[in-house]
Each structure stands twice: as C-alpha cells, then as structure tokens.
C-alpha cells in the first residue's frame, strides 16, 4: 500500500469490552447516549415549529403523530433524558471547574444526578398543564 494513501493515524476510543462496568462508567456512557437522543429531539422540535408555521392544517397533522401513544412514550422518554443530561451536564461543569474528582465524590454526585433527574421528571409529568393536555388529561 502506498504510504501516501494511508489515512492519518488518529487514535479512536478503546473498545468498551476492556472495561469493567462501574456506576460512574454507566453514567458517563449515558451522558453521551442521552446527548445523541436530545439531538434527535431537536429535529422533532424544529419539525414541530415548522408545522406550526405552516398553519393549523400541518400543525394538526404533526399533532396527531405527537399525541399517538408510542410517540407520547418517546416524548416522555425524551423528557427524562433532558433532565438527566441537564443535571449530569452541571456535574461535568463542576468537574471542569476543578471540583469533585475523587471516587467518593464522583459516585455521590452521580447518585444525586439520578435522584434530581428522577424528581424533576416526575414533577414535569405530574404538574405541568402542557404535558397533561398532551396525554389528554382533562
């Protein structure tokens, strides 16, 4: 093989199999996965606004998709993912500021993130009129 055709040697992430899964590892992986899911959610948000701009007819068309049960469950999942990524993102920012690096602190802050995300998710589902309207609660 001609060396000039060889692509630049760039380090890729090591394979996941070489690690033993720990609580903090799972949370770290979830941050990336939830980020990707929110990227997909942003496409839905843009489509929703574009449909609203198109008028009541196109809005009604996307609305009937968004209010169907499978999509309602996906939207609820997106809501959970939103809160997790937000709280874990704050955890990352605290690390970036130089705090909370030892194992005890990292496990503790991880547990707090899961707790806060669960509480915020539950509160959003139970308390917001917009969500109740979407799932057809009178």
């Amino acid at each position: 093989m001609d060396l000039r055709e060889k692509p630049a040697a760039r380090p890729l992430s090591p394979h996941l199999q070489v690690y033993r899964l720990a609580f903090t590892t799972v949370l770290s992986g979830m941050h990336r996965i939830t980020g990707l899911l929110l990227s997909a959610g942003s496409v839905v948000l843009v489509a929703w606004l574009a449909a609203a701009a198109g008028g009541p007819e196109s809005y009604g068309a996307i609305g009937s998709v968004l209010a169907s049960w499978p999509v309602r469950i996906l939207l609820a999942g997106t809501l959970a993912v939103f809160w997790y990524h937000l709280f874990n993102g704050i955890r990352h920012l605290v690390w970036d500021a130089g705090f909370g690096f030892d194992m005890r602190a990292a496990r503790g802050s991880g547990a707090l993130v899961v707790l806060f995300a669960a509480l915020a998710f539950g509160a959003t589902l139970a308390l917001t009129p917009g969500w109740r309207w979407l799932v057809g609660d009178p």
Partner: protein
Amino acid sequence: MTGSRHWRNQRISAVALVPLGVWFLYALLSRPDLAHASVVAWLADPWQAGLMLLFGWCALWHSAQGIQVVVDDYVPAQLHGRARLASRLLHAALALILAAAIGVIAMAGNT
C-alpha cells in the same frame, strides 16, 4: 478549529443551555394547552420568540459540538471528514428552518 477552542465553546453553549433549557420546558409545558392558536399567541410575543430562537440555536450549536466529538471518537479516518461535514450541514439547515419557522409564527401572531 483548535481542540481547546472547541472545548471552550462546548462549555459556553452548555452553561447557556442550563437556564435556556429550563426556560424552554417551562414556557412550553406551563401552557394550558398546545393547540395551534396557543402556540402562535405564545411566539407572537417578541421576547418569547427571541428566547425561543436563542434556545434553539444554542441547543443546535451544542448538538453539533457533541456530535463532532462522537464522530471524532468512533468514525474511522476514511469517513471522518465526510461525517463531520454532514453533521455540520444538517445542523446549519436545522438552524435556518428553526429561524424561518419562528419568524413566520411570530408574524402570523401579529397580523
């Protein structure tokens, strides 16, 4: 772009998205209903439309930054450049559609 600039920009969008993300969810879900007229009335307010644009653009910027890191980590060199470009173009297109949609809704709500 240098790695440190990418790192810093990702933190800027992250910090901005903490209040903007909470605002967005609150503004959206505190409404009694999400019927068409209700959404149009919401975004007819220039402050709300402006915040929505700011949130949407920050979210798409942050998404582009995050996906670039995922591409850097997992996409092999032969496809790396194309994957990066595809993500950037897609995010730019979404940002344009978002701005146009908010503009149209805001104008419809003020006529």
